[in-house]
C-alpha cells in the first residue's frame, strides 16, 4: 500500500488526516514540524507528502524544497490556513516550488482524497 507522510503542527488536523487516510488503508507516517519531517524522511518508502506550510522550526516551503531534492518523484500536497511570505502567498510559492496540489484550509476532505488517489494512480500506472 502506498505510504503517505503527514507534516502538520496542529495535532487535531494531523489526527483527522491520519484517520481518514487510514480508512483508505494507506500506510501513514507523521511529523509535527518541518525539521522533524526532514530528519526522519524515508525517501525509499514515502510516495506522497501532505504538508502544512506555516510551522515552527522549518516551514513547509523548506520541506518541499528538501524533498524535491532528495526524491524528485515524490508527490506533494501543500495545505495552508492563510498567511503571506513577502509579496507572494505561501500557497503560490509552494506551487512554484513544485507542490503537485495546493489546498487552503478548511478544504473538502473528499476533494483531497480524490486528489490523492489521482496522484498515486498516475504514479502506479
Amino acid at each position: 500500500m502506498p505510504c503517505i507522510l503527514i507534516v502538520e503542527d496542529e495535532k487535531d488536523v494531523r489526527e483527522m488526516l491520519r484517520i481518514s487516510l487510514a480508512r483508505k488503508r494507506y500506510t501513514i507516517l507523521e511529523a509535527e514540524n518541518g525539521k522533524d519531517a526532514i530528519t526522519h524522511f524515508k525517501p525509499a518508502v514515502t510516495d506522497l507528502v501532505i504538508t502544512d506550510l506555516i510551522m515552527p522550526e522549518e516551514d513547509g516551503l523548506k520541506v518541499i524544497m528538501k524533498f524535491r531534492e532528495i526524491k524528485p518523484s515524490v508527490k506533494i500536497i501543500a495545505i495552508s490556513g492563510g498567511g503571506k511570505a513577502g509579496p507572494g502567498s505561501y500557497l503560490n510559492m509552494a506551487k512554484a516550488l513544485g507542490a503537485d496540489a495546493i489546498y487552503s484550509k478548511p478544504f473538502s476532505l473528499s476533494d483531497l482524497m480524490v486528489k490523492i488517489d489521482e496522484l498515486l494512480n498516475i504514479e502506479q500506472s
Partner: protein
Amino acid sequence: MNHNTKIPQPDDFLELLKRDKIVSDHILNNSRSMISVITRDYIYEKVNATFCVAHLGMPESIIGKSLGDIWGYEIFRDKIKHNLDKCFSGETVKYVEAFSTPQSGKRFYEVIFRPFPAVSGEITHLLAETFDVTDLKLTEQIAAEKEDEFKRFETNLPIGFLRCLPDGRILLANKAIMIILDCRGQISLCGTNLRKYYTEESLFDLHVSQLMDGKPKSFGRVPLKTCRENEIVCRISAFMFLDQSDKPSYIDFSFEDSSREMMLENKLLQAQKLETIGALAGGIAHDFNNILTTISGYAELLKDDLPDPLQSSQKIARILMAVSKARSLTNQILTFSRQMEQEKVTVSVSKVLKETLGFLKDSVPPDVIIKRNIWSGKIKVFADPTQLFRVFLNLMTNALQSMEETGGNLSVELKQVNGKNLKDILDKDILADEYALVTFRDTGKGMDPSVLRRIFEPFYTTREVGKGTGLGLSVVHGIVSEMGGDILVSSEKNKGSVFYVYLPVTLEDRTAISDLQVTKKKILFVIGNRHEAGILSLALESSGYIIATASDRKTLVREMSDGEDLPDLILYMSDAEQIKTNDLIEVIAETNIEIPVIAISDTGQELIEEKSLPSGLIKQHLIKPVSLKEIRNAIQLSLI
C-alpha cells in the same frame, strides 16, 4: 527837568552796540553749529568759530571764498546750489545731507538756509546754520534696521505673537496669529477677546491664574477655535508683565499650530493600531482555519460512519455549509490583515465602477439621486476585479444606507490625479506617478469624529448587534492598502460623508502570474445578476479564459449542444432566476457530456439538495464574496 533821567550820549550808544556785538559774537562763536552768512554770489561773508574749526582755518582764510572753494565744486553743484537758490527766492530751506569737513570727515548735517533781507526787503544774503545730526541719524538708522529685521522675523515665522490684557482683550497681534486663527479678511485682532478663541473659555482663566507669578509658562496642545469655528490645537507659551506694585499689567503670548503634527501622529497611531489588529486577527484567522479543517474533516468522515447515509447527509451538509460560512469570514479577516492571497490583473476602474453602479441600481431608495461623473479615459489599475467590486459596493451601500430615511444625493466621481500633487495628502514614502481617484460623496447621516477614527477597525460597527459583522470597511481598507492605494474619509454629523479612494495607476497590461496555460479554456457562465457576473467575466477574461454566458434555459441548451465549441466548465451562479439547479442538472443529463460545475452562492443553503451535492455534479462550491484567486483555484482544480 528831571535829574533822574539821563539822556544817552552817542558814546553810550557806541558802548551799548559794542557790548551787544560782543555778546552776539560770543553766542555765535560758542554755538556748536556752523553758522555763516552767504551772499548771492555764493561767497562766505561771515562765519563763526565752529565753522572755522571744522575747516581747520581762520575766518580770514574762509571769508571771501565761494562755497565751491570750501566744499568742493561738485558737491556744491549737486548738493547745495539748488537749496541756496530756493532760499534766495524767499523760502526757508531745511534738509539733511552728508558732508565731509577736514576736522571730522564725513558726517550728517541738518542744514537750514534762512533768507536774510536787506533794509530794502531784497534778499541779498542768507543765513546758513548747520547742525551735526550724525549721532541721531545713526541711531535712527539702527532703529529702523532693527525694526525692519524684527518685522521680517516676526512675519516670516509661523509663530503667532499676541499681547493682551489680563481680561483677554487683545492689544497687539502679528500676521502669523491671523493665519493660525484663520482670520484672513479681518484687518486686526485688536479689540477682540482672546478668550473667545479658546474652545474652553475657563481654560483661559486657568492659564491667566497660572501666569500670576510673573514667570514664563508653556501650555501644550491647547484646543482653540478659529475665526471660522474650526478646531485647531496650539502650543502656547506666555509671560505676564507685572507693574511696580506686582499687579498684572499685560500678557504676551506665542502660539504654534500643532494641528498638523497631531494629525500625522494620529494617522500613524491609527495605522499602527490597524497593523496590530491585522496581525492579531490574521493569526486568529489562521488558527480558526485549522479548527475548521478539523470540523469539516470529521464531518465528512462521519458521513460514512452513520447507518443511514442518505438521511444524515443533509445534516452533515449543513455542518459543512456552516464551515464554509466561517471560512468566508476568516477569509475576510485575512483580506483585512492583507494576508489573503490575491490574484491581480490589469483592470479598468471605470468598467468595475459602472458594473457596481448597475448592480446597485435596484436597491437605490426612491428619494436618493445618484450623480455620476466618471472620467471616460482609460484608467487601469492592477487589482482583483472582484475585490475592487467589493470596495465600491461596500462604500456605496454604506452611503445609500445612511440616506435611507432622509433621501439625498450620492455623487460618484472618477478622475486621474498626478502623484506629485498628493505628497501632503497620502502618507506614503513612495508615490506612484498617477492615481485613480474615486470619490463617493453622500448627503446622509455622517459620522462623529469618534466614529470616524475607528471605522476601519475590524468588528467595529455602528449597526445593532447581530446586524453585519463590522468587517466591511476593514476589508475595504485591507484591499485598497494591499493594492498600494489609500483610502481617506471626511465626514460631518448630519451633513454627510466623503470617501476618497486612491489607487495607483498601472501602465502595463499584466495578466495573472500563474496564468501560463497555452490552450484557452472556455467557461460557460450561468448568470443571475448581469452586473455581478460582469465583474467575474471581466476578471476571468483578464486571466485568459474565454467566457460565454447563459441567463435562460434556451441559451444554456444551445451552448451545451454546440459540438464544435463545448464549454470546458460551467460556472453556476445560484441566483440565476431562469435556470434553477434542477434545470442545470437536467440539461447536463440530456446532453450526456461530463462537464464540471462550480457553484457560487450567497449562503449555499439553496444548493443543499440531494441531487446536486452528493451527485458529484457540482465539483466545487464557493460562497460569496469570492475572490478571483478562489475562483481560479476552483477552476484549475476542476479542470484537472
